[in-house]
């Protein structure tokens, strides 16, 4: 595992005049998991959007240190996998077409067998040629896992990862979380006690 850490320094996120996240400072190393908890509207999802460079903090710094090089989150996107209820894939495309498209724009050369293996890993084996529009919410969530894991990211950000899952889906999350410990950093935004226990550290927002 290469040298990798996430550093937050006095991070704050505002929406208009309302400050939802304030003064967060921490360092997270490869092999560690951060669980972020808090009530609805406390800024869990916003914090994860900052960590993947989709949103800028109102104050403070979020950065990654990768093999000695300091990277802002938007410059580190090739290393980040993100899963969120806000994340939608293309409903008019099949699961295979979605994954192939995102592999191509990421510059990955994946064969059909690679994509099928990934789909099987997330529990969608044999369903790759179905349109996403025909998927149930749980199946769509599994495809979001495949999107997030497509490039074997050393930084994995999971926002409410099991919210639409049954028990077998929850097992997928547990497998991914365990695997990520050997791959790099994992950040989970959740209020589910079963997911919180994966955190080496728990950050409670809105207190």
């Amino acid at each position, binding site marked *: 595992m290469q040298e990798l850490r996430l550093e937050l320094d006095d991070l704050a996120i505002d929406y208009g005049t309302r400050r939802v996240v304030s003064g967060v400072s921490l360092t997270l190393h490869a092999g560690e998991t951060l669980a972020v908890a808090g009530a609805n509207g406390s800024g869990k999802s916003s914090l994860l959007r900052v960590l*993947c460079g989709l949103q800028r903090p109102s104050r403070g710094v979020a950065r990654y240190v990768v093999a000695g090089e300091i990277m802002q989150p938007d410059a580190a996107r090739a290393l*980040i996998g993100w899963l969120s209820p806000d994340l939608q*894939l*293309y409903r*008019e495309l099949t699961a295979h077409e979605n994954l192939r498209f995102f592999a191509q*724009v*990421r*510059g990955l050369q994946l064969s059909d067998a690679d994509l099928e293996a990934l789909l099987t890993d997330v529990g969608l084996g044999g369903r790759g040629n179905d349109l996403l529009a025909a998927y149930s919410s749980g199946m769509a969530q599994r495809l979001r896992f495949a999107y997030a894991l497509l490039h074997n990211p050393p930084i994995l950000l999971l926002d409410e990862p099991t919210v639409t899952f049954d028990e077998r889906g929850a097992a997928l999350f547990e497998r991914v979380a365990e695997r990520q410990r050997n791959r790099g950093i994992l950040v989970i935004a959740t209020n589910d006690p079963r997911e919180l226990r994966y955190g080496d550290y728990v950050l409670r927002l809105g207190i």
Partner: protein
Amino acid sequence: MMLLVAAWAVFLKDVRSELRTRYALNALLLFAVSTVVALSLGLGPLAPSRNADLRLIQSGLLWIAILFAAFTGLSRSFVQEEDARTAAALRLAAPPLAVYLGKLLFNLALLLLLVALTAVLSIVFLRLPVGNPGLFAALLIAGSLGLVAATTLIAAIISRASIKGALFAVLAFPLLVPLLVVAIRGTELALDGFGWDRGILPLQVLAGYTIALVTVSLFLFGSVWET
């Protein structure tokens, strides 16, 4: 090279999505057909005896039909990404320039289809006489390139606004006025049957306009897309 592969992937994805949803295609085609048919029914075949500036009027009508159809459809490739909430996934995975180039290419393909249809309908229903078909086609292609160069960046700007349609027209109009003036005047020359010696100037202006706007867009798009 990787950038071009990614841009081509964005283009192919948009084509595949469009063929399955007909999100922009139906609106564009419906607008183009209804405009030309309405003009044809309202004005009838325009004869030279009715107006000395006939070629200019015909050229203007043709470009206005193209412009408004373009307003209807060309913003949709970006607006659809925001409305369907797929933009975040795309932002995270694809280089901004690949997104721009892919969308530019998709809009160009869509507009060329629209322009070809509008031109054929105008020739049939408005009895549009084309004195110099080669110059006529070159001007339509050059004008389309300029139109796409301007509208693709504006579509990205307005895609997250709440009043997208109005904002698109407001921002696009001042940018497109010079393009339209040159395209209309140039097309008039082609309809009148003038040669390439007269038609080369509007073609050069349209090419310069397109190059300038694409260059500016390449610099600005990253900020627009990420903001």
